[in-house]
């Protein structure tokens, strides 16, 4: 058993994120957590589906949603998922610099997504008077999409804290699992968005 967590290309294990018991625990723990998150979002989706036509004479989804902006947001978030895959690829090759680079790109894409979402909400509130309190549809919309946005905020804070903390440390068996769990979480947020895009926006326009 080694007390030393530093890595070099010679001692690099195949999967640094799962090479230690702590790393394995984090990996499984995060997967289980995502299982719970799935139920959380499923419950929000169920609530939204039940209330999406309860507009109480307020604005409907068809009136307010603009697919152009949502399409851009989708592309930003999907791409950020891809870049986090690149980062993990470089982590497994023990290329710390490239991993940092791709994670930074991920963070910028995430911030871009968040900016669009804030603009979107602002636009609905000021131009349509469509708020959390307008109707049951409004409450359900802002809660579902807002909780997803909250997850993006949390993920970004997590990523930035990781990047800053490990900026000068290089990769080791202690922080490799941390980067990996972040990337898993980020994929999950992306998957949830795909469902939001379909259920909230596309079905709101077409359904």
């Amino acid at each position, binding site marked *: *058993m080694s007390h030393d967590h530093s890595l070099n290309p010679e001692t690099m294990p195949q999967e640094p994120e799962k090479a230690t018991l702590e790393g394995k625990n984090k990996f*499984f*723990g995060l997967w289980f957590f995502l299982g719970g998150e799935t139920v*959380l979002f499923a419950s929000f989706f*169920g*609530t939204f589906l039940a209330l999406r036509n309860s507009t109480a004479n307020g604005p409907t989804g068809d009136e307010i949603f603009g697919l152009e902006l949502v399409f851009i947001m989708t592309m930003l978030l999907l791409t950020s998922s891809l870049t986090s895959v690149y980062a993990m690829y470089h982590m497994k090759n023990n290329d710390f610099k490239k991993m940092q680079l791709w994670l930074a790109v991920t963070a910028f894409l995430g911030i871009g997504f968040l900016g669009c979402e804030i603009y979107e909400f602002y636009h609905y509130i000021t131009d349509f008077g469509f708020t959390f*309190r307008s109707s*049951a549809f409004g409450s359900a919309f802002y809660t579902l999409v807002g909780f997803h946005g909250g997850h993006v905020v949390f993920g970004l804070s997590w990523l930035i804290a990781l990047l800053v903390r490990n900026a000068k440390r290089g990769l080791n068996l202690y922080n490799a699992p941390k980067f990996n769990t972040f990337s898993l979480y980020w994929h999950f947020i992306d998957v949830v968005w795909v469902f939001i895009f379909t259920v909230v926006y596309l079905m709101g326009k077409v359904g």
Partner: protein
Amino acid sequence: MSTATAQKRGFGAVLWDYLTTVDHKKIAHLYLFGGGFFFILGGLEALLIRIQLIKPENDFLSAGLYNEMITMHGTTMIFLAAMPLLLALMNAIMPLQIGARDVAFPFLNALGFWLFMLGGLLLNLSWIMGDAPDSGWTAYTPLATESPGHGLDYYVLGLQISGAGTLMGGINFLATIVTMRAPGMTYMRMPLFTWTTFVTSTLILFAFPALTVGLFLLMFDRMFDSAFFDVTLGGNSIIWQHLFWIFGHPEVYILILPVFGIFSEVFATFSKKRLFGYTAMVFATMLIAFLGFMVWAHHMFTVGLGPVANSIFAVATMAIAVPTGIKIFNWLATMWGGNITVSTAMLYALGFIPSFTIGGMTGVMLASSVADYQYHDSYFVVAHFHYVIVGGTVFGILAGLHYWWPKMFGRVLNETLGKITFWLFFFGFHLTFFIQHFLGLMGMPRRYWVFLKDQDLDLGNLISSLGALLMGVGGILFLINIIYTAAKGEKASADPFDGRTLEWAVSSPPPYYNFKQLPLVRGLDSLWIEKREGNGKLKPAEPLGDVHMPNGSILPFIMSVGFTIAGVGFIYQPDNRTWLLAVFIGMGIALGSMLIRSLKDDHGYYISKEELEKEAD
């Protein structure tokens, strides 16, 4: 690390030790004391309810106070007593049963406990603030959204915080069982209590987020004027019922499956026989858990979901009787031909079988959606769920405590006192709840604070109340037993009951690192195999080496305090916006501690090989 050395260290040191501990055995003690405290509280509330109902048109409690009493009794017993007491046993025993040195996330384990404890205290703070929740433990909307005062706000925030703690516990146990089983401990060699811990944790993982969402919606409606349950703005009250029961039905299996595991261990040990039908038991557990998610709408038969939905949920509910029946017969078959010792733990197990079977039978009656229109919201339902929760869960917890007390505290609970407690509690329980079936069938509705006289309900209620007092006496006797045992109890050997599983291979209480060398597991009932085929000692699976241990930390406590402060802020901010300050301060403390936890490296420490060699076996 016995209690004797702890006493020498002075109160402050012990307190600090427990505030910062990440050791699963000490966290088990904390869960036991926390859960025990709330159990006493819930028990007192139950007694007050029964005193109110001892005679017709009683005015012992006012109608409003009575509503608060039933709400807090239910909420406290389910969330703050039964579940934490089960988590205490899981924490104390499961890592030992799989041959692990701790759980996967010791820090998270401590955080889970403190969130539960402070969430529970926050909920009960409502009593002191004179504003307890009063919409029933189910908090149906629109009653819950319209309930004046802050009672329901305490309900929402208290449960949200303690629920987050429970969810963490579930994830932690799942990861522990997946990654930390000792060499040779395959899934199908795990003791049944570990199996039920595993399956229960899955239930916690998939059930609690639905409650989280429900509580958020209720919180938003009450505090931020959203319209989820507000019909005038298109809201829908039934959403709450669905979300609550999607959580609530699996919750009852969260309460019962662990005690199925406890009883399986107790029956096998005290019958000196391998558990009959181990594989069937494991798969029955999984089947019950799976079906447990498919039946939530049987709580909503009278809502008007329509005959098709009602029929599907009725059939699914009845199907659960099959795996449960498999279990009952396997326990009976385990005892058949065994060399039975009737210890206190075994008495509870023996008392459980008929009691729980009655509860199961009324469960099948209630599952019939047509007949349910008659039973719904009557004392028949109250009788049913107390038969499964007291006759199942509480008996199971008491059996587990008598069985594992020596492993947790190093002393054996007094058997004579234990047996007297059992008989008082057993008779008290049946006296209280058996008659309630008939009260219900005669039309007595649940949750009413008075009943009229000369409607043939007087005698039944009197009997029920007397039974409750008897249960109360049993409870006090159990406390006396604990105190007596702590003072004068017989010191426990490593294996006082001639056990079969790994936890009996280490000393009582176990050393803080559990296993000096991880054991090699050669089959089901691994210790029993070594007793029969080896020298009674487990073979080590690794050479003696340094042992990695996690560092203690005060952060879980500080984080939980932060969330609780924020909770209080949320409760009072609709009155006065300056309370938002408490929200920001509280969240700042909590998130700040999370940041510290993330930024500060914590590699734990090592117990050196030399130190381990010095310790006696």
